[in-house]
């Protein structure tokens, strides 16, 4: 039976009719039209569904929507600020870190959460932060370039 739940997504509160078994990624995509988070493996092994829950990356394919009540949810659609793209988004564009794009929202959110917690990560920390996000196109080189670029841009904005 569906019931109304209140989800706070990208700073906006939404009343959503959801069954207790509805998975967060499906509610975001189908009820709220936020199709940035992708359905991939459905089992937490690819990271395409990554969203931020209270600032931390989480696999939205393994979280019931009802479990996210009371949390701050950020999807890729909510990452950009008033002044434009998030620095990680901009860095992905500049580094050419996108090919088919299916993994990109998850990659960008995982990287943004990393830089929020650790603005100047070393190489090992970057790789660790992205280790739950699979990309089958790029070979990761440009993605790592982008994250390094976003970090160095934050350090030296010129």
């Amino acid at each position: 039976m569906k019931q109304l739940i209140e989800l706070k997504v990208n700073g906006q509160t939404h009343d959503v009719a959801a069954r207790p078994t509805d998975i967060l990624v499906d509610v975001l995509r189908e009820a709220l039209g936020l199709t940035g988070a992708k359905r991939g493996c459905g089992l937490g092994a690819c990271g395409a569904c990554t969203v931020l829950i209270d600032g931390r990356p989480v696999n939205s394919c393994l979280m019931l929507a009802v479990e996210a009540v009371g949390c701050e949810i950020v999807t890729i659609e909510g990452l950009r600020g008033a002044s434009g793209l998030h620095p990680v988004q901009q860095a992905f564009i500049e580094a050419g870190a996108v090919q088919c794009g299916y993994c990109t929202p998850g990659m960008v959110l995982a990287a943004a959460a990393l830089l929020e917690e650790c603005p100047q990560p070393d190489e090992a920390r970057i790789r660790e932060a992205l280790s739950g996000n699979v990309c089958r196109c790029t070979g990761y080189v440009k993605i790592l370039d982008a994250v390094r670029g976003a970090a160095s841009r934050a350090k030296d904005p010129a």
Partner: protein
Amino acid sequence: MQVKAGGGPAADSECLMEPALEYHAPESLERAVAMLAEEPGAGALLGGGTDLVAALKCGLLRVRRLVSLRAVPAHREIARTADGGLRIGAFATLHAVAGAAAVRAACPALAEAAAQTASPALRNRATLGGNACIDTRCWYYNQSARWRAHRAPCLKAGGERCYANQGENRCVALFSADTPAALVACGARVTLRGPRGERTQPLENLYSGDGLTPLVKDPAEIVTGIELPAAPAGSGSAYEKWRERDSIEFPVVGAAAYLRLGPGGEVAEARIVLTGVGPGPLRLGGTEAALAGRAAPDEADREIADAVSRSLGVLYLAEAVPHKRRVAGVCVAAAVARAAAAARAARSAA
């Protein structure tokens, strides 16, 4: 859910969750226990959900009721105890456990095991208690319903035969969590709250040795905490994990070593525990006895590795068995060497 360790990737993400599943989020542990006890076996406890939701999606778990711990605020803290030990709330996430300074200082093996579990996003949800209670896994069981539909259900899925171990026809699904091996090696005790009150016992005794029902506990009992004794002077621990790639995967083999050194640098006490080789964390009593009294090795010792490989009993596994035996030996030897180095460093710092 991680995908290996005797469980290949599910072929599709078709969601088989029962639409009529009840969901409850009681605000107290007592209420959660009562809800699970109302109809034994009909409910499942939902903590981080990283393993449970995956099992529900694959149709591996048929329950009518989920009891969420979301609204239970307690049992998340990580703190030193008065006697220098460590108390960890069972609902602490693996991210919190891996990053806690107190854990890294008091039990490096646990911090290493938690940090190498699954992926960062999964560790942000998965809990230590959930990891301790994770179900056993098998290539023939942890698959999508569509994959499994091609043959009669296996023993673990309620059928009559084991496809992994056709000789003896008993379930040989593998316990593959990382943190319990480290916890057992470091002498952890577990606290459970159930319909008949609270009990605390060695974590080692939580495991039945049966792949079908790997835990010795009432289905309505909830693991609420883990306690580690104070590490004595001159002791050290380490965890070594071998997996098919350095992220997400369950271990092919994980090895935890705890060593306490005597005044002459000899091994006074050793506890060695493997994961990924049996239906629960496996203590290597023979290896522990062989190490006692010997000089603690400076580096990974070939003899230890070979002895461990030889000592492992019959393994029924999808991975090549000789390979798994060899990896187990190598992991134990490496963990013992690092635990010895940590123990020597702890003794010289004291």
